[in-house]
């Protein structure tokens, strides 16, 4: 059941992405511009994750390669390196995003402020999901 969900997830994300993108175009002027931007951004992010997930699932590996890949995924040193790199990049990109957010709020505002807010929320969500995933693997 868990494996089935794991295999289906990229396809679900890919389909949901197209639903969101199509909804943005179909609803057009009927919804607020900010909401339209949020829908489109989420659609774009899901499209990226879905496409990458589908592409990775299509890669065929020999049993030895598969075993080696799984071992490297669970290897405690690799997990520690990935976690450290993710923490570091998340920390610095969050600082940069906040700087951009402040500059936009002060000098530009409006739609760009909303866009940066969405990116900051997605950035934090990505971090939380990955930390949870890596903690489970360790």
């Amino acid at each position, binding site marked *: 059941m868990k494996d089935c969900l794991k295999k289906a997830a990229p396809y679900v994300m890919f389909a949901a992405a197209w639903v969101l993108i199509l909804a943005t175009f179909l609803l057009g002027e009927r919804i607020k511009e900010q909401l339209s931007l949020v829908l489109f951004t989420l659609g774009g992010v899901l499209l990226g994750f879905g496409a990458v997930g589908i592409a990775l699932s299509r890669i065929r590996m020999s049993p030895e390669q598969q075993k080696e890949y799984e071992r490297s995924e669970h290897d*405690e040193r690799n997990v520690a390196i990935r976690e450290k790199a993710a923490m570091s990049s998340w920390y610095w990109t969050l600082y940069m995003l906040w700087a951009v957010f402040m500059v936009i709020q002060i000098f530009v505002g409006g739609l760009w402020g909303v866009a940066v807010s969405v990116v900051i929320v997605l950035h934090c969500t990505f971090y939380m999901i990955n930390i949870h995933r890596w903690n489970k693997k360790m």
Partner: protein
Amino acid sequence: MTNRIAELRKARKISQAELADGVDVTRQTIISLESGRYNASLLLAHKIAKYFGLTIEEVFLFEEEIP
């Protein structure tokens, strides 16, 4: 912390890949452990000690820092 992994491995004529297979880590992790660039977790230390049929203290040498 230092360890005797390389010494024990060579004495038993075991390759890094074989040891990596035996304790379910990558060869890179064994290389890093032997060169002292990485300290094993308690679980991995236990697995390695068990692999050699020794205790953790016999494989991993904890050096107390002199103040």
